[in-house]
């Protein structure tokens, strides 16, 4: 795939070619993601059609990689049915090349709002706990005696055990001790 990245980087110097290539990839991407999201939820096309207020035939067409006549309105309906948000943005060509490299059934999956927010909330709590450790670790790495081998162990020790080399470190020292 890395070879393809190189090839496309070169080929995309031609504007007409680049747009035609990426336009078709966008259609394929959307079709594949609709299918991946439906499969992830264990829904039939008929069920997705019911949840999004469409006919089953329409869902079938939208999942066809050869279809390119979708609209933002239709995609918003699907986003609501999947309990996801639709993000439409203008992107650089290099981002598209990287998307091609990364695309897989797994990469297209998205969890619905409730599950996502639950995970997000938990991750935020973890991040809140880890941030000071990381911060202190940086301080330790930069400013503390080289005798410290394990940074995480060092963080759990009293900061006063270390040798500080700069008077301006006092606020950091006080922060860690607190």
């Amino acid at each position, binding site marked *: *795939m890395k070879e*393809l990245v190189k*090839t496309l980087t070169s*080929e995309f110097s*031609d504007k*007409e*070619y*680049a747009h*035609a*290539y990426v336009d*078709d*990839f966008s*259609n*394929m991407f959307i*079709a*594949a993601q609709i299918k991946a999201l439906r499969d992830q939820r264990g829904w039939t096309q008929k069920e997705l059609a019911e949840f999004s207020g469409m006919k089953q035939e329409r869902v079938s067409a939208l999942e*066809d*990689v*050869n279809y*390119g006549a979708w609209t933002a309105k239709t995609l918003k309906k699907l986003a609501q049915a999947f309990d996801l948000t639709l993000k439409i943005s203008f992107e650089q060509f290099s981002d598209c090349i990287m998307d*091609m490299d990364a*695309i*897989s*059934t797994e990469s297209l999956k998205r969890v619905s709002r409730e599950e996502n927010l639950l995970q997000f909330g938990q991750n935020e709590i973890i991040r809140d706990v880890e941030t000071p450790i990381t911060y202190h670790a940086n301080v330790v790495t930069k400013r503390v005696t080289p005798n410290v081998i394990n940074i995480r162990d060092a963080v759990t020790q009293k900061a006063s055990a270390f040798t500080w080399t700069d008077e301006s470190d006092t606020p950091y020292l006080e922060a860690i001790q607190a």
Partner: protein
Amino acid sequence: MKYALFDYVTNKGINDFKIWTEKLQKIQRAKLNIRLDMLENKGFDLFPQILTGTDTAGIQKLRVPGKVQLRPMVCKGPINIENEFTLLIGAIEKQDKLQPKKADQIADKRRKDVITDEKRRTKHERIS
């Protein structure tokens, strides 16, 4: 899963598929290449409708949308069925009819040529 792509070559060593591709317009070549790239690098599980069957068993058409509906004929393998595709003949489809006529049958004959003689194909030559 990654697949290897090959082009059929005639008994005179001519890469027919390459010549057909060179005659396409730039936009058509771009649309053909994205399909071939995804087939080569991602397989057809992710994009199942990229290949559809023909009236001839073992021969599939690669569906390339556009003003002109490109339908190059493809087969799995035929040497290594699991991880190869061979591009057998370039074709288009108008009103559900293939051009050249019986492209699927010509493709099948070519597929058999490759089975008989592996030298009747070469690594796919990309035309951009």
